[in-house]
């Protein structure tokens, strides 16, 4: 994304477009990532309730996947999961594909 000059941006740091926080990818902030164990998951979706970054993707009322572009690795989902179907692993073990913020 090419950054705009001072004449081409709204004043005062205003953001005029709703819901554009999604464009800001925060996945690279993660030091640990949640990993899902399909066998243990009962699809109670407590992870979806607790996730502060809306990074639990649900399809047809079932857990589908994590949004690793935005998940910051806080681990709340793994703490809340009643069946221990989510555990945290070192991010370094995975290839980092996102470049958060750009």
């Amino acid at each position: 994304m090419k950054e705009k000059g001072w004449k081409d941006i709204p004043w005062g740091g205003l953001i005029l477009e709703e819901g554009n926080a999604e464009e800001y990818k925060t996945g690279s902030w993660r030091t640990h990532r949640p990993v899902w164990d399909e066998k243990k998951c009962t699809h109670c979706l407590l992870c979806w309730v607790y996730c502060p970054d809306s990074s639990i993707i649900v399809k047809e009322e079932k857990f589908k996947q994590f949004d690793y572009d935005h998940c910051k690795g806080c681990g709340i989902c793994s703490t809340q999961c009643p069946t221990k179907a989510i555990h945290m692993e070192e991010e370094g073990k995975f290839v980092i594909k996102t470049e958060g913020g750009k």
Partner: protein
Amino acid sequence: MGRIVGLTGDEATAEAMRQINPDVVAAYPITPQTETVQRFSEFVAEGIVATEMVRVESEHSAMSACVGAAAAGARAMTATSANGLALMWEICYIAASYRLPVIMAVVNRALSGPINIHCDHSDSMGTRDAGWIQIYSENCQEAYDNLIQAVRIAEEEKVRLPVMVTFDGFIISHAMERVEILEDDEVSQFIGKYKNAYSLLDVDSPVTYGPLDLYDYYFEHKRQQIEAIEISPEVIQKIGREFKDLSGRYYDLMGSCHLEGAELVIVAAGSTAGTVESVVDELREKGEKVGLLKIRIFRPFPAKQIAEALRGVRAVAVLDRSVSFGAQGGPIFLEIRSALFDEIKPPAVVNYIYGLGGRDIGVDEIERVYKNLERIAHTKKVDELVGYLGLRE
């Protein structure tokens, strides 16, 4: 048209606020501003203004409430003095950087400590870099007139900056003077309706105020603020002309000056400009070539106009009612001296710090300044760049 009444500076300010009838006023009482807010609260209690009055627990909250209200699309006003302004500090910068046209009366009072309730300009001068437009008033009439014009200046689309209107604590705030008040409908027509293009309450065009703004865009937003305040003089002059059509009283970037044929000039802001003016009238009757340049708009500083106005002058004394500790003189002096740097034949310029903590300044001291200027113009020698008036050695 209008009526003539006896009002103190605080009362004249409250009267202007009543006629402006802002959507929101959030304020906390502090001497010598108290009577402004007290009187305005009576207007609210009596139901003669439609204002939502927010009785906050501190000035930090007062300015925060004004920021929230202005972002929501309301016309928001407040008033404060000295330590109250100091407590607002953080939010003053936020109001300016979010481009919110908050209007504030600052009743000039010395900052603590030691604690002092009387006039000097240390409070408003301290906020001179906060991004607000600053208008200094000499008397009750100017405080009233400037506050009404401030609404238009702040809300002008290409400016959109908060405006601070100052007047001297006690000397003006508590002194009763003859003030010409406009009709209520004249004021409401002059200021018009506030239209915020980006209202937080506009659910059809949602907008985010105050996002994190790091090294990628913060600098660009500061550049926009610079542009807005640099454009403001033409707006201030345009509104000054419109105000003259309405009231018969004309305001430019500089205050009214006595510079015709002047060789020795005193620069002053606030009520002292009036004292200087009376000395100028007296000395001019004796044929002395003395003059006055009154500061009105201090931010943005009208450097070009002032340099032009002082062309041909031999010696200038700048009176500062505040200290910039460790600097090369008071805040007004620094601006004036810098403004004259590119002149081919700049006058000699000296600085006098005076009136701190409400210390009185009399005509005899001002006469002495003109005598010193005469000596400087004659000998072309400045012994003391920064001096002090009315200070015991």
